[in-house]
C-alpha cells in the first residue's frame, strides 16, 4: 500500500479491473493454499463432499438402529451418531456447499469479477473448515456430543468432553462463515462489472448477497452462545445451569437466533440455483425477476424475527407465542411468490429435462411439501402436538434434503461442465434424479405420520407398533444412500470419459458461460460491460467489451441431454 501518488483520485467508471493477484506457481500455492476463488471452491466441494459421505453413513447407522423397535445400537452410541449426523449435515456439508462452494465458484464469475474482494480472507476462511470437521469427528474418541445438533443444556453441560470439542468445531465454522459473508458482501457491492446494476445481477448473486448478510450477522450470535456453553462446561461459568442461577431457555433463545436464519442460509442459495437452472432449461426469462430478488431479501429479514417458533413448548411467556407464530406464517408469502414465479417460468417454455432441470422440478415439489408442513409447525396449537416428534424430523429433511440438497444436486449438474470443462453422463444423471426423488419421498414422508401418532424424535428405541413404518423408512433410506453413488460415479466417469463441454453447453446466458470451461485463472481477459438482465433468450447477449470464447456467444447451444439431437 506504500504508494506515493497524487492526491487527486481520477474517477473511472468501472470496478476493480486489476484486483487480481499474479498466478501462483508451484503445487502448494496453486492447489493447497491457493487464493483463487475457483480452487478454494473446489476445496470446499471436496471437503464438504467427504463430510457428506461420512454424515450420510451416520444417517444409515441411525436407520439401522431403528430397524428394530428395541434398537440395534447401544443407546449411547445411537445418541452420539444422530447428534454428529445433524451437526455435520448442517455445518460441515450444506452450509459449506451452498455458500463456500457454489458461492465461491459462481458468484464472482456471474458479476464479472476476477476474484472475491479479499482472497486471503477467503483462504483463511476455508482452512478453518477442515480442522473443524476433524475436531468434530475426533470427538467420538472423547464421547461425542449426544444431545442432538441443538445441544440443549442442561444435559449438554453434563456430557463428556466431546461436547466441548463440538463447541470448538462449530465456533470455527462460525468464524469461517462470518468471514465468508463479509467477503461476499464486499465483493457483490464493490466488484460488479460496469453496467451490472443490482437489478441486472443474476438471481444466484441476489441469493448469495442475502445469505452473506445472514452469515455475517447471525453467525456471531451463535459464536456467543457456543462460547458461553464452552465456558460453562470447562470453567463452570453459570449461564445455562439452573442450579447455579442460569437459564436453559437462554441457550434456546441464543441458539435459535442463529439457527433459524441458518435455515435460510442453507436454502436461499438453493433458491438462487433453481432461479438459474429453470430459465436456462425452459429457454425463458425468469418470471418476475424483481419479486424473486426482493423476496430473497424479505425472507432474510423476516428470518431474524421468528426464532422462538422453535420454543413454543419450552415455556416462554405465552403472549410471546403469537407474534412469533404470525411472523413465521408471513414468511410463507415471499416463499410462495418464489414458488409461483418458478411455476410461471416453466409455463410456455421449451423445457429440456436435463438432470439439473429434473432436480429443480423435484425441488419445487418437495420444497412445497416442506413449506406446507412448515405451516403445521408454525401454528402454535398444532405445534403443541408435533413439537419434538418425527413430524419435525420429516419437515426438516423435506426443507434441507428436498430443498437444499436437491438444489445442490441441480447446481452440481448445471455448473459441473463449467467447473471441470467436461460433461457428466446425462442419462445417469436423470436416473439419479428419479431414484433420489422417489427414495427421498418414501423415506421422509412416513415420518410425518409416525410423529403425529406419537413417535418422539431422538429415541434409540420406540413403541413396537411403529416398527412396520420404521422398517419401510429404513429400507428406502438405503436406496436413497445408494442413489448418491450414481452422482459420485458420474463425476469420476466424466473426469475420464466426459466429452469436452465447451464454454456454454447449456446455452445459458449469465456471464460465467461466456468464458472457457474451466475458466482461466483471471476469469475475464477484459471485464465486459453489462447492458441488461441476463435472461432474455432470443435477444443478443447483453454484454459488450467481452472477447468471448468461440462458441459462447452462439444463440444455438448444442443440446447435451441426449433427449434432443442437435446439429
Amino acid at each position, binding site marked *: 500500500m506504500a504508494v506515493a501518488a497524487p492526491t487527486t483520485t481520477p474517477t473511472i467508471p468501472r470496478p476493480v479491473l486489476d484486483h487480481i493477484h499474479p498466478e501462483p506457481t508451484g503445487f502448494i500455492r496453486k492447489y493447497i493454499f491457493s487464493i483463487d476463488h475457483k480452487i478454494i471452491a473446489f476445496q470446499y466441494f471436496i471437503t464438504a463432499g467427504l463430510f457428506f459421505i461420512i454424515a450420510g453413513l451416520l444417517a444409515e447407522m441411525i436407520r439401522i438402529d431403528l430397524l428394530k423397535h428395541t434398537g440395534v445400537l447401544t443407546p449411547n452410541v445411537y*445418541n452420539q451418531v444422530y447428534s454428529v449426523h445433524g451437526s455435520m449435515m448442517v455445518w460441515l456439508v450444506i452450509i459449506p456447499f451452498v455458500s463456500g462452494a457454489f458461492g465461491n465458484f459462481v458468484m464472482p464469475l456471474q458479476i464479472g469479477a476476477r476474484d472475491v474482494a479479499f482472497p486471503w480472507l477467503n483462504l483463511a476462511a476455508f482452512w478453518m473448515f477442515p480442522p473443524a470437521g476433524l475436531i468434530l469427528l475426533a470427538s467420538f474418541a472423547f464421547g461425542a456430543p449426544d444431545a442432538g445438533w441443538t445441544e440443549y443444556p442442561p444435559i449438554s453441560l453434563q456430557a463428556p468432553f466431546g461436547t466441548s470439542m463440538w463447541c470448538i468445531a462449530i465456533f470455527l465454522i462460525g468464524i469461517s462463515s462470518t468471514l465468508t459473508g463479509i467477503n461476499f458482501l464486499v465483493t457483490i457491492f464493490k466488484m460488479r462489472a460496469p453496467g451490472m446494476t443490482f437489478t441486472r445481477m443474476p438471481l444466484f448473486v441476489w441469493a448469495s448477497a442475502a445469505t452473506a448478510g445472514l452469515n455475517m450477522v447471525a453467525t456471531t450470535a451463535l459464536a456467543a452462545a457456543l462460547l458461553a456453553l464452552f465456558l460453562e462446561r470447562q470453567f463452570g461459568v453459570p449461564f445455562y445451569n439452573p442450579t447455579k442461577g442460569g437459564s436453559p431457555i437462554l441457550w434456546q433463545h441464543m441458539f435459535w437466533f442463529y439457527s433459524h436464519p441458518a435455515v435460510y442460509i442453507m436454502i436461499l442459495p438453493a433458491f438462487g440455483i433453481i432461479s438459474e437452472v429453470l430459465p436456462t432449461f425452459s429457454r425463458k426469462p425468469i418470471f418476475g425477476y424483481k419479486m424473486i430478488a426482493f423476496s430473497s431479501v424479505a425472507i432474510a429479514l423476516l428470518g431474524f424475527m421468528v426464532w422462538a417458533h422453535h420454543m413454543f413448548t419450552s415455556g416462554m411467556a405465552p403472549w410471546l407465542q403469537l407474534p412469533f407464530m404470525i411472523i413465521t406464517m408471513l414468511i410463507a408469502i415471499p416463499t410462495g411468490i418464489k414458488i409461483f414465479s418458478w411455476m410461471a417460468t416453466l409455463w410456455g417454455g421449451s423445457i*429440456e429435462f436435463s438432470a439439473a432441470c429434473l432436480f429443480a422440478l423435484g425441488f419445487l415439489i418437495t420444497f412445497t411439501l416442506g413449506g406446507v408442513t412448515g405451516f403445521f409447525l408454525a401454528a402454535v396449537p398444532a405445534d403443541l402436538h408435533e413439537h*419434538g416428534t418425527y413430524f419435525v424430523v420429516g419437515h426438516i429433511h423435506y426443507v434441507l434434503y428436498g430443498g437444499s440438497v436437491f438444489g445442490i444436486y441441480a447446481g452440481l449438474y448445471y455448473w459441473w461442465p463449467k467447473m471441470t470443462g467436461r460433461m457428466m453422463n446425462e442419462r445417469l444423471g436423470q436416473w439419479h434424479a428419479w431414484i433420489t426423488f422417489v427414495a427421498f419421498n418414501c423415506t421422509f414422508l412416513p415420518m410425518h405420520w409416525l410423529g403425529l401418532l406419537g413417535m*418422539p424424535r431422538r429415541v434409540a428405541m420406540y413403541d413396537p407398533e411403529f416398527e412396520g413404518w420404521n422398517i419401510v423408512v429404513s429400507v428406502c433410506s438405503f436406496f436413497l444412500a445408494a442413489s448418491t453413488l450414481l452422482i459420485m460415479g458420474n463425476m469420476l466417469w466424466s473426469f475420464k470419459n466426459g466429452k469436452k463441454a465447451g464454454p456454454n453447453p447449456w446455452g445459458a446466458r449469465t456471464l460465467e458461460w461466456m468464458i472457457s470451461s474451466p475458466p482461466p485463472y483471471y476469469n475475464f481477459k477484459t471485464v465486459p460491460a453489462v447492458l441488461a438482465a441476463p435472461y432474455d433468450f432470443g435477444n443478443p447477449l447483453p454484454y459488450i467489451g467481452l472477447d468471448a470464447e468461440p462458441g459462447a456467444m452462439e444463440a444455438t447451444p448444442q443440446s447435451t441431454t441426449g433427449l434432443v439431437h442437435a446439429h
Partner: protein
Amino acid sequence: MAHQVTKTKVSLGPYFWLVTAFILVASAIMSYFVYASGWPIGLPEIAEPAPEIDALFKFLGAMGGTIFNIVTGYIIYFAIVFRRKKSDPPDAIGVQIHDNPVLEFWWTVIPTILVVILAIFSTVIWSSLQNTAGDVLTMEAIGHQYYFSFRYPKLANPVNNEMHVPVNVPVTLHVTSAEPGEPPVNHGFWVPEVRLKADMVPGLINTLRFTPTQIGGPYRIICTEFCGALHGTMRATFYIDSQKDFDKWFAKQGGSGGSPGAGGAAGGGAGIALANGNADQGATLFAAKCSACHSVNAFSDKKVGPGLGKIFSDPGHPKLVNGTAPTPADAAAIMKNGYTGDIGQMPDASTNQITDGDIANLVAYLASLSKK
C-alpha cells in the same frame, strides 16, 4: 408489458382449464376426506382441547393439501405440455414474457389472505388453551431420569409412572423436572391423545390445562425432550377414571378418602387431615408407640397385634372395617378410636397418647412401608 399480458391470455396450453378444474376438484375431494376421516392424526380425542386442535389440523391439512395439489399439478402439467419435443429445433425458445403484474398481484394477495385466516384461526384456538377458568384438580408432574412422578394434593408421597385423573374434572398440570439432588435435565410431557405437550425444564414450571372427557386408558405419557441415554424408554401411563374409580385409586395411594379434586373433602377417617403426614416422623413414632405390639413385617408376623408392614398392599390382609382392604382412612380411624374385634384389641388415641398429627404421620409411614 401490456401486449405480453394479452399474450399470456392466448393459449394457456391445451386443456388448461380442464386441468385446473381437475386440480380444484381433486383438492375439494381430498379436503372432504380430511374432514370426514380422522386424518391427519387419527388418535382418539380423550380430552378438551383435543377436538379444537384437531379442527385446526383438519384446516391445515385441507389448505396445505390444496396448495400442494395446485403447485404439483401445474408443474407436472407444464412439464408435459411445454417439454421440448424431438421435432423442435435445438434453438427453440420459450415465450419471452418477464412478468404479469395482475397474476403476481393475485398470487401475493391470496396467500396473504390465507395466512391471515390461518393466523386468526390459530389465535382463537390458542386463546382457548390459555383460559384458566375453573381448574379443579391442580397437580404436578415431575420428570426424572427416566421416569415420571406425579404429585397430588392431599397425597403425602408422589405416585410414580402412573397418572390418574377423574373424568370431566378440569386439570391444571404443572410440569417441571429434576428434584433437588438429581442431575438437572430437560424432559417433555406429552399425551398424544390429549394433543398437548410441555417441556419439563429444571427450575421452571410450565402449565398444561385440559379437561378429560372420555373414561379410558392406559394411554402413553411420552418424554419429548432428549434427557439422556435411555430417553427413548421414558414412558408413563395415563388413565381417565370415573370419579368413583379415581377415588378408590386415590385412597389406595394413601390419599385420605375423597377426591383431591372435590375441593377439600374431609381428609381421612375420623376427620384427620392425612395429606401432610410425614413418614419419617411416623417411623420414629412407630418405634416409640407401636413397635411394642406391631412388627413392620407381613400381617402374619404377629406380636400382640398383627404385622403392619404391608397393611395397604397385602391382599391377604383381613377386612377390618367396612369389608374392604384397609385404607389409610381406616387405619387412621382405628388409631383414633381404638379397635376391638376378631384379631384382638387396641386402645384409642387418648390412651396411647397420640395426637391427630401423630396419626397422620403414622399413616404416612405405613403407606410408605406398603409401597416397598
